[in-house]
């Protein structure tokens, strides 16, 4: 085991033990699970030279020894898949994927596997900080005498996602693979903590659907920023992937110019839905509802309805309820997925559905919607227009959001804080 801070500045000797210079940096090739060290940057009297790993006989906390007497004095050039550990990672910010937060690199840990050193973990704990400050030894002694643990924290290199730093000598060409696998809510938390430039990098690496899922989970203010930073085409693509109610809420928060520019790039169907929803006041059922739901005529059988659901592959937010509408589009009944599954396959929907279901009108206020949802223990409540036509549903999560206002304080001074900032 070797920490980067133990290697930096250590002497480099040639085969005859003649001093050549000092270790200025280590180079690793990214792409593997644990990137191997592929070379050293050596600071000689006059310049920095590059020494490939094949010429290195030994590397440890006492320094490095080369295999050769003479080396080709190669001027150091960084290749695209390589990272300089000290220049690009040390003291910079990285995303801790498991912890879902942005942390700072205090030190880097290398392990020797089969004759080569590999970068295995990032030290983000107190121990690394003390080591860098050169007071780890004394501190540990004191801590031992007080029988207090020294706080240590390491993050496996697999669970790390580098961010483009302000000062890194290169743009890290590392795909944000780890982030793409996160739950959208966790990804949103991380995006909220990143500087706009890093955020753009992460969003660029996600497909539209993943980006939409993450953006749906973000704070409204951050959503607006993110969308304004994207190209109108990309923003439109992402909005199309969002559920219409979330998309409408977001579009409503944009300024006129941005809004028109983005809407111009949207597919006409999704655009019509969003514009439709924009017409309702924000704190009414119309403003809370989504237009994605499943409705069937009462004449189908249970089996046909289930087939229909499969065929439609609804990307509706919820298919826990299947709504039943007449040919005028009026809401006549509802049945839960459970009812549908336990019904005999040949049973008519009209016979198993619940008639005259609880519903709200587009103009009902959010408190009323919440009351209905909680009184009947619904996961979603249908919304009807004045002619009783079914126009949308309000799902329970949107109701909760509406009645439990986000009470998180917004103070300036915290870039990357959730919901804003600090002082």
């Amino acid at each position, binding site marked *: 085991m070797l920490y980067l801070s133990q290697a930096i500045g250590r002497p480099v000797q040639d085969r005859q033990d003649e001093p050549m210079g000092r270790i200025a940096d280590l180079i690793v090739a990214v792409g593997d699970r644990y990137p191997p060290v592929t070379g050293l940057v050596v600071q000689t009297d006059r310049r920095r030279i590059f020494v490939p790993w094949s010429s290195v006989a030994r590397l440890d906390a006492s320094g490095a020894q080369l295999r050769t007497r003479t080396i080709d004095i190669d001027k150091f050039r960084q290749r695209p898949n390589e990272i300089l550990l000290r220049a690009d990672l040390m003291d910079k910010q990285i995303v801790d994927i498991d912890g879902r937060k942005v942390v700072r690199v205090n030190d880097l840990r290398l392990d020797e596997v089969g004759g080569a050193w590999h970068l295995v973990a990032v030290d983000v704990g107190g121990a690394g900080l003390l080591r860098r400050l050169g007071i780890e030894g004394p501190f540990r002694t004191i801590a031992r005498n007080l029988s207090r643990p020294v706080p240590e924290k390491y993050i496996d290199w697999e669970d790390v996602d580098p961010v483009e730093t302000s000062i890194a000598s290169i743009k890290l060409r590392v795909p944000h693979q780890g982030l793409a696998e996160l739950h959208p809510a966790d990804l949103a938390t991380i995006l909220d903590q990143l500087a706009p430039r890093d955020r753009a990098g992460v969003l660029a690496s996600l497909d539209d659907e993943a980006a939409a899922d993450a953006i749906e989970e973000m704070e409204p203010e951050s959503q607006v920023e993110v969308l304004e930073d994207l190209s109108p085409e990309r923003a439109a693509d992402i909005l199309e992937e969002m559920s219409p109610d979330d998309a409408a809420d977001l579009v409503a928060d944009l300024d006129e110019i941005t809004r028109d520019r983005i809407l111009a790039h949207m597919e006409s169907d999704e655009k019509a839905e969003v514009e439709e929803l924009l017409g309702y006041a924000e704190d009414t059922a119309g403003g809370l509802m989504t237009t994605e739901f499943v409705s069937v005529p009462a004449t189908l059988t249970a089996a046909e309805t289930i087939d229909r659901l499969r065929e439609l592959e609804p990307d509706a937010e919820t298919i826990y309820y299947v709504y039943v509408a007449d040919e005028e589009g009026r809401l006549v009944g509802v049945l839960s997925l459970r009812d549908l599954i336990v019904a005999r396959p040949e049973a008519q929907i009209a016979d198993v559905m619940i008639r005259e279901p609880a519903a709200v009108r587009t103009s009902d206020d959010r408190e009323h919607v919440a009351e209905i949802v909680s009184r009947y223990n619904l996961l979603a409540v249908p919304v009807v227009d004045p002619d009783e036509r079914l126009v949308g549903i309000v799902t329970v999560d949107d109701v909760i959001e509406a009645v439990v206002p986000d009470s998180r304080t917004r103070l300036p001074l915290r870039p990357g804080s959730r919901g804003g900032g600090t*002082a």
Partner: protein
Amino acid sequence: MTGAEPNGGSELTGAEPGPGGSHLGRIGPNVDSARRRVLPAFRRTPAWRIRFAAVLGVLGPGLVSGFADNDAGGIATYSLAGIQFGYALLWVILASQIALFFTQEVGARLGLATGQGLTGLTRERFGVRWATFFVITMLVANLGTIIAEFAGIGAALGLFGVPIPVSAALASVAVVALISRGSYGRVQWAFVGIGVAVSVAYIVSAILSRPDWGAAASALVVPHLSAAPAYWLAVVGTVGTTITPWGQAFIQAYVVDKRLGPEDINTTRLDVGLGSLITNVVAGFIVVACAATLWASGQTGITDVAQAARALGPLAGDAATVLFAVGLLAASLLGLGVVPLASAYTACEAFGWETGVDWRWREAPAFYGLLAFFIGFAALFILIPGLPLIQVLYLSQVLNGLLLPFILVFVMLLASDRRILGDLASGRWLLGIGWSITVVIAVMSVVLVWATVSGTA
């Protein structure tokens, strides 16, 4: 409601089947548009309001830190300058305000270009050791400032006869409330409102006290020099209360937090310019008011805060004390809403610790621990029996001034690095001005130390 006629297909609410399959729950064109037209709360905002909000959104950091500059330490220091030296220090006020614009502008640009705070950048550019030194310097200066805010509250409430222990407790409660409750945005504008009111009171009072405008005008542009240690103390204090270590961290963090980017540079510059101009005008009038009332009548020895209140006499008469106390109290609270948070944030950012009031205590122990330490230390400090509060207010600003050169050197080194600022890199011009300011302030601090040592030796 009746059941539907059989039509053998899945009819999807008013949807026309599009290419390649059915749509889900699409609403047809048959919506009651008439109803929508009369909806009270339309979700579209008129364009002019959006534009206005956008300008206001960017305007702010400079204005806020401009007013926050006239905090308790500021009011005390400007008052003392006017009382002890009359109009003589006006040139320092003008010069330090011009310098304030340039230092704040650099700080704002660093934030706009990198999206990182000052200590975070220091850490990335100079490594952990320098960053630690930087943070400690910053925290020492900020602790002085926080003590000054507590002393300001103690002094203000003392004018109403409230004993110091009670003020210390009240101040501690106030900080916690300011930091943890409600939306800071609204509180911030309330502070600015109070700031405006107090500023206006000083301006009116200065005019009513019939100052010697000629002397004031010449003192504004003609530097007055003296070898007296007390004079240099006042010079460094005046600079240190205007350009502050925390102010540098604050402006940068503020633009980062508002997520402004390089495209907002012009609005930010305007904002910073307005902020320093306002600070300048107010500070000048505080000096003039004190000079025309107390200094002109020969009362140049000041032993307690109550005397400084008499500068507001021409406007408020017998109510001057009340007005002064309210102003001092508001100014202290304004500082307390910002400085402790800015300090904790600054430290945590450099070391990558969780920071901010959104975290729970257990998730961000360093952040809350630092806040608790600042508040506890400051509260205990002003409990020291027989502490001359006015001196505490004054000397804390001198400490700020003495530590400022260290902070500015880091700021200027960062600003000189083209890789960091990218498109917003300083031209030769701005760099030259920035370095000159840094050198001048450093020289002043050295002169003060020298004058103090040789004066007392």
